[in-house]
């Protein structure tokens, strides 16, 4: 094949490999934190914990209705004016957590909303504490229901990492933009697509498998 410059691809692959590692690192950090934040918000809303419930509501609306790029802009260029200087990686993880937490909260909340509140009483009646009730009775059921939404959120957030280059991080998009200056746009595009596929496809397959397992786990009807 003549129209693909394989030498170019082979020689530039290590650049993409390094950038992919950075993307994965930031994505994993941001998504895990987002899941934790989202779970807390969802619980605050499910149990209607005063004050936290309202805070969670406003946070969710704020985060979901502004683009990640704008959020990152604020963290990277706005915060320093308030005297808070964060490096690019911190901004990226905080930004992804901020955005993702809201989507995760909505995903978990959907799962929690599907659980009959009598389940809480039934769990309390055998002496489980509120935390144990959440841990052993409510969360497992909610997670099974919320799984498809959680998996969609994870994949959405992985794709959102492609805007990190605006805070000067050498991630996949950054490397690709850099290489485009040398021409070879076809090869660069190919490398970029392959890199994202290599990262996201396994995650997608994993979540799909888990979803089927949860669905056939013997409950959920």
């Amino acid at each position, binding site marked *: 094949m003549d129209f693909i410059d394989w030498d170019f691809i082979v020689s530039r692959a290590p650049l993409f490999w390094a950038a992919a590692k950075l993307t994965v690192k930031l994505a994993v950090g941001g998504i895990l934190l987002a899941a934790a934040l989202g779970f807390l918000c969802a619980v605050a809303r499910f149990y209607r914990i005063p004050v936290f419930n309202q805070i969670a509501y406003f946070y969710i609306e704020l985060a979901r209705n502004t683009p990640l790029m704008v959020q990152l802009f604020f963290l990277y260029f706005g915060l320093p004016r308030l005297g808070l200087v964060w490096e690019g990686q911190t901004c990226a993880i905080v930004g992804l957590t901020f955005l993702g937490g809201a989507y995760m909260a909505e995903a978990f909340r959907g799962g929690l909303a599907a659980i*009959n509140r*009598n*389940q809480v*009483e*039934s*769990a*309390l*009646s*055998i*002496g*489980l*504490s509120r935390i*144990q009730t959440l841990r*052993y*009775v409510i969360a*497992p*059921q909610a997670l*099974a229901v919320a799984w498809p939404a959680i998996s969609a959120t994870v994949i959405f957030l992985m794709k959102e990492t492609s805007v990190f280059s605006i805070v000067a991080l050498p991630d996949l998009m950054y490397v690709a933009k850099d290489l485009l200056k040398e021409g070879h746009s076809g090869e660069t595009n190919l490398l970029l697509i392959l890199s994202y596929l290599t990262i996201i496809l396994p995650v997608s397959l994993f979540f799909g498998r888990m979803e089927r397992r949860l669905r056939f*786990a*013997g*409950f*959920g*009807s």
Partner: protein
Amino acid sequence: MSLGPDILKIKDLKKNFGSLAVLKGLTLTVRQGEVLVIIGPSGCGKSTLLRCLNGLEPVQGGQIIFGGQYLTDPHINWSRTRQRIGMVFQNYELFPHLTALDNVLLGLIRVQKRSKTEALAIAERWLTRVGLWDRRGSFPRQLSGGQKQRVAIVRALALEPEIMLFDEVTASLDPEMVREVLDVIVNLAKDGRTMLIVTHEMAFAKAVADRVIFMDEGLIVEDAKPEVFFENPATERARRFLNIFQFSDIHKPQEPSASPLAKEAQDVKESNDAKESNDAKDSKEPELS
């Protein structure tokens, strides 16, 4: 009949939902080993009473004293107290993501912190007793209503509560499954367990009750021995309530109409029921004394 000391005292209990007064100063004492059947028209506060006893509803006034402890004390440790008060709900409320066995084990292991072996032994003993040890691996959705309710009863009993609360535990069951659940409860009564039972099954109430509590509009209107209550209720309200049941009993068989013949069959059935309930009482008394 020899009963133990007072185990539960309810004094002037008041419960409101907003401006709606549901319990209006209810007073009741239960002795150890007693079986109380609570009946009364829909909305009179039966479920609310049981829920207050288990701390599922905050109360607005009065006292509940259970085994010397004030349940109306706002600082009470409910987790510890609820282990001593077993509750069974109308709709079973088994945990759908856990097998029958794990439903029973959860409280034993997580609440009572028993070892797995110990918890298993207890669960086996109870599930065997209600004939469901074979089904221990089944998830709730794979069980019939009657089986689910038996698991729910065992889940509460396994924690060795001092009193059991049953809230219309057969109301959601198909008729053919009512019996298997009521049999379990009758057996518990024979063991001398203290129980508060809300039910609309009058034949069962007659058979199992030491005392019948008739509630109306948030108060206890009658508190009597079942023989007395069912044969000769003291109040007009109770009489009217019981009449409704006799009427609905007659129409229960799905006959096109209540023909004289059907009525006759019903009468025979009723006298059989009465005989059965006497039998149940006879066999129960020696074990309680």
